[in-house]
């Protein structure tokens, strides 16, 4: 690489960093400011007041707990059903696999608004409204397809001989999964967990529709802060909290983010 292209490359990356980070700078900056103005903290002074206010509000704290609960449940459920499916697709010629793919993709890209009403009706009958279980379940509609896609490409990178030797040693399918397959594709499990976690965490339409009176997610708790006189600083402090779990997840998978997106026919 020439010096000139190196300098240009570095300049480009700095521009990119500025573009991506600017909104985050704004959020953090407003979160440590008094944006309504109180006697102790006049408008515009820097203060940790907003963060203290979060913990003074039961609704805000419980929304954090609710979100973490359904997202964790969703990731567990998604992995549980996607792992066997990804393995099956990777290793066997399954009749109807093309139809299976079309169904998966179609539901991944179906807008949540389209499904929110019937899911609400169905889940009311099943008593799944206002519970984290309901949201965890419905988020599978877009996470299971993503998980199968990522896991399948990681599993396909494991040689078949690996399964066969385990089976010759007399391992059952479930023991084989736990003792051999999962450790062999650990980075793939990590990447899958990251994307499922993120897509469930950021989703709004289902999470709002399915929580009428109770179990509100963090996204709704923040929306509910808007009113006649909105405390922007508090909103931003809550937004900072809403970013933390995602940042932790990114840190764990930082070396593997760009792996596992091989597309097969």
């Amino acid at each position, binding site marked *: 690489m020439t010096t000139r292209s190196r300098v240009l490359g570095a300049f480009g990356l700095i521009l990119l960093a500025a573009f991506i980070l600017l909104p985050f700078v704004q959020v953090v900056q407003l979160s440590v400011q008094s944006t309504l103005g109180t006697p102790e903290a006049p408008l515009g002074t820097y203060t940790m007041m907003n963060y203290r206010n979060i913990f003074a509000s039961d609704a805000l704290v419980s929304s954090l707990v609710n979100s973490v609960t359904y997202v964790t449940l969703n990731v567990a459920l998604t992995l549980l059903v996607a792992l066997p*499916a990804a393995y099956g697709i990777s290793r*066997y010629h399954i009749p109807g696999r093309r139809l299976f793919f079309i169904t998966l993709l179609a539901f991944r*890209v179906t807008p949540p608004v*389209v499904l*929110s009403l019937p899911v609400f009706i*169905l889940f009311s009958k099943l008593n799944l409204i206002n519970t984290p279980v309901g949201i965890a379940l419905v988020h599978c509609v877009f996470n299971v397809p993503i998980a199968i896609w990522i896991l399948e490409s990681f599993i396909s990178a494991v040689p078949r001989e690996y399964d066969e030797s385990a089976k010759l040693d007399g391992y059952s399918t479930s023991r084989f999964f736990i003792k051999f397959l999962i450790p062999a594709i650990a980075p793939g499990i990590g990447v899958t967990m990251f994307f499922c976690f993120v897509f469930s*965490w950021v989703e709004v339409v289902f999470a709002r529709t399915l929580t009428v009176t109770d179990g509100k997610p963090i*996204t709704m708790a923040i929306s509910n802060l808007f009113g006649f006189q909105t405390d922007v600083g508090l909103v931003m402090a809550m937004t900072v909290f809403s970013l933390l779990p995602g940042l932790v*997840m990114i840190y764990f998978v930082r070396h593997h983010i760009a792996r596992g997106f091989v597309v097969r026919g």
Partner: protein
Amino acid sequence: MGNLGQRRPWLLLMPALAILMVVGIIPLGIVFYYSFYDIFTLQARSWVGGQWYSALLSSSRFYDSLLRSLGFSTLIMCIQFPLGIFIALMIPRGGVVRTGTLVLLALPLVVPWNMIPMVWLSLVDADRGLIGMAIAASGWDFDYKFNALHTWALIAVMDTWHWVGLVAILSYSGLASISPSQYQAAAIDQASRWQVFRWVELPAMRGVLLMALLLRFMDSFMIYTEAFGINAGGPGAATSFLSLDLGEEMRGFDYGPASARSIVYFAITACVVWAFLRVSAREEVPRR
């Protein structure tokens, strides 16, 4: 359990299918059923046949929204794909800069979708926003509330910020699959930078790019939370995209028309996916 996979491999797909049944296929069936009814309450409804469908498909508003959504998808794909591929090409293949850039690109993905318009609105706020203050200082008359062009620009920039990282990450994962020997072969052939891109890098990215294309097209075509948060479809109807119309009917409790609209949208979605799979299968290099 035994060696279940070998005897009945399709059983491995069953748990995933069962979940999709409950959260996808059955709800879709319910919508389909309701789309033929006028719904006062879910208990009191009357059969109207295809009335909602013919009303929707003969309303000019539907086609206007369809065109707007198509225009929006086209616009953001024309920005995000060249930009995302360009970013992917800039990322070094190893080291701290590589990891750092990939982490940077993933950052906007973890922001809850209803926070995104809120954050961008505070960025362009003329009193406190970092961009808004700069715009005010420059004297530019930026007005995202009443100037349709400015609303579109704001949504497009916001969407690019949100999603260009995904395009870049996917492109990069394609590039990372190229072995050094392929580059060496190209260098021996004295291939130009453009030829390397066209004949080595682009084919390696083909699969992931097609997938990114489907995801970006559909997600922008049906954009809801972010676009609604900026200007609720306005000014006038300048940014009322397909999903915003549906959201409006839902909020107005027009469940019959909303159901018919949902089915039409799902049909569009299914057609796009089908076309996408046809295209990707046709150009597929035979496997094994």
